[in-house]
């Protein structure tokens, strides 16, 4: 079981780098949604015998992150008719280098953390840390609101990975709640994106500095 989980987490870490390197919004969204689906599958592989509740969480995660949220984002993108370029703050190569360095650091850090013996060999913790870092890099390094939403979602994916460590003890309701939060968050951001677009004729968050006192 660990091998397949590790494989999936490894894929997710690769998708982090793809997200950092993509220069067009649709591909960024696609990377994020694929990552969401992969993460949705992981709980199914972690359990020896399949509990229907775990299956439900997995299904909801996969649909939410793989279909609903990307759909919302694509709709927002169309509605606001924004250019497809990502328009980076931190260039693609530096972002990739940072991401790679972050992944290495995450693996190193995970070695130093006092983990349970059963998690010691797993890639879950390094994957979680690497996704959080990637999310941060996207949040800081991209100027369009949609790409920041993607950054936020990848960050959330990292937190979700971390949460998988505790899947046996976390109640179902908490998992479902987190998912709902994320969906509502993206929904709200979709509305905000629309409003930013109307007010500033652009989705460049750098222009929000005009709002400061």
């Amino acid at each position, binding site marked *: 079981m660990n091998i397949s989980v590790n494989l999936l987490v490894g894929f997710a870490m690769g998708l982090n780098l793809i997200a950092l390197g993509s220069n067009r919004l649709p591909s960024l969204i696609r990377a994020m949604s694929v990552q969401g689906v992969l993460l949705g599958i992981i709980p199914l592989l972690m359990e020896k015998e399949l509990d229907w509740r775990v299956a439900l969480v997995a299904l909801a995660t996969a649909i939410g992150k793989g279909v609903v949220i990307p759909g919302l984002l694509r709709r927002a993108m169309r509605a606001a008719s924004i250019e497809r370029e990502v328009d980076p703050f931190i260039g693609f190569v530096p972002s990739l280098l940072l991401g790679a360095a972050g992944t290495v650091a995450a693996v190193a850090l995970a070695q130093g953390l006092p983990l349970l013996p059963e998690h010691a060999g797993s890639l879950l913790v390094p994957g979680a840390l690497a996704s959080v870092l990637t999310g941060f890099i996207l949040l800081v390094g991209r*100027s369009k609101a949609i790409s*920041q939403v993607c950054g936020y979602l990848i960050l959330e994916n990292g937190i979700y990975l971390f949460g998988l460590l505790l899947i046996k003890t976390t109640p179902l309701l908490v998992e479902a709640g987190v998912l709902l939060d994320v969906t509502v968050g993206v929904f709200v951001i979709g509305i905000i994106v629309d409003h930013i677009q109307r007010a500033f004729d652009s989705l460049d968050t*750098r222009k929000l500095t005009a709002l*400061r006192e």
Partner: protein
Amino acid sequence: MNPGTLLLASAASFVASIVAGNRYARAWLTLTLTGVFAGLSAALIVLLGTTDWEWRSTLIVGGQLVFLRLDGLSALFLVLVSVVGGAGAVYAHEYWSEDDYPTSAPRGRMWWSGLVLSMGLVLTIVNGLHFLIAWESFAICAYFLITLDRQRRAVRAAGWLYLAASHAGTVALFAFFASLAARTGSWELGPLRDHASLAPLFWLALFGFGVKAGVFPLHFWLPDAHANAPSHVSAVMSAVAIKMGIYGIVRFSGWLPMPAAAGWVVIALGATSALLGIAFAFAQDDVKRLLAYCSVENVGVIMIGLGGAMLAAAHGHASWGLLALSGALLHVWNHGAFKALLFFGAGSVLHATGTRTMSRLGGLWRTMPWTTGMFAIGAVAVSGLPPLNGFVSEWLVYLGLLDAVVSKGPAAWAAMPAIIMLAMAGALALASFTKAGALIFLGSPRTQAAAAAHESGRWMRLPMLTLAALCIALALVPVLFWPAVARAVNAWDTSWPPAAVPNSLTSIGRTQVALALAAVAATFLLLHKVRTNGLRRGLTWDCAYAAPTAHMQYSSGSFAGIVVGWFAWILRPQGIVRRPRGLLPLKAFRIGHNPETVLELVIGPVSRVIVQASRTASRLQHGNLQAYILYVIAALVALGSVAWLAGTP
């Protein structure tokens, strides 16, 4: 009647007057005066009786039971609040009337009632938390009264300065009451002399109340606020509001154990305030600024008396401590009466001429005889001259200090310089008020406005007459007021024996009456002589100059020039001089300015540094979302590394 009923009636009429003040001027005045008389009677019942009034209610405010108490000390101050609160309300009825100030007059009435009510609460509340609430609402009411005329830029600036300074003091009081509550386990206040560990808290109280009282280096807000406020507000601020600071210092110096240095510090602060306050006053050209600085001097006199009493209490010399403290407390009343009178006089002049600048006035005694007379009484009183009331209380303070010198204890080392500085302050006070009286009322008018002055109406004259009568009563029969003062002293230190009227006070009363009679007789004699012989009017000798003008009279700067020179090290007078040049000089002038040294040389630079630092820090807040997220990451990483480092043994 029971003081509790009276206080309840008083509070109820003040609340009603806040409501009525918005619309109905007459109803407001009636209600305010009712409240004032009820409060005054309650205070007098407590002062002249033997028992304190206490009311422990089941009402809970902010998680604390409401607990009110009126003892000798708070009743003494409540009398002052009531008298000046009532007099100022009557004065404002004409001075700040609806006709002249249609928008700010209703506001002024409401805040006035609020101010008097909250000061009354400050005096009766004996719970630290509630005290802070009342204290804060008192400060805010005063702020809105100071800025009644907020169209003027100077008024707004003075208001902000007052508010900032007042809150700096309040912060210290928050610390004071909170640590008091933490150490005693209760917010309730009361005598705590046996808790020796509370002694250092006195410094916090001294700072917090000292800002409000306007003790010398903390007085920097006072001249601006008192000068720019409407005159009835200046009167209540100077005569009463700063006394709330004094009340706090007296109250807690009586209740808390004192640090060993407390008496020395208080007496030193008092002496400094007295001397430097009056030196600053002498240099002013604005009559209300002069009066405001003079309040700093009088607060100094009170602090000298209190410091003397604290030294006496620390070294076990009840007799002269009692004299010094009763002098100080009597001076609280005296200063309240004559300073309110003087500010009413100055307001009357301002009302009639539109200026506070003394160098633009002159010769007002012809057009404003009542105001001149009242101002003269106030001026004699404030200068500490017999036969008026300022002399009585200052004399008691002197007597206390002289006894301290004679007793040759260690306190003599503080008392001796204090006497000298008090005497110097007295001389300068006389000079200051000679200057003010002469420039405003004597000579001939320096400007058109001064020439066109008119006497103020009866609503303004009535409170002035009342206060003048009070000054005379306090001066001629001080024995009458002794029981009240003795009771307040007894509330300060219950271990001191209840004092009979001191012989010195009886004799000074007799001397004052004799002096007053002599003065009245001399006046009548002079008038009689003038009537029979007639007056011969002539020009002042002017070196045979052919075209004398009113501008050749003494100006404020020339009158004070020499003394300002003595105190130049602290006054820092600034001026632009253009001397007459050549054989036929065309233009020559001297423009003088006396800055508020503490404000401009200490507070100003310090606040500029703070503002600069805040500006630099505010560059971090530029509105760039990405950078904000970076801050979050940086903070997370920092926290993480702290946790990491702390976790590794």
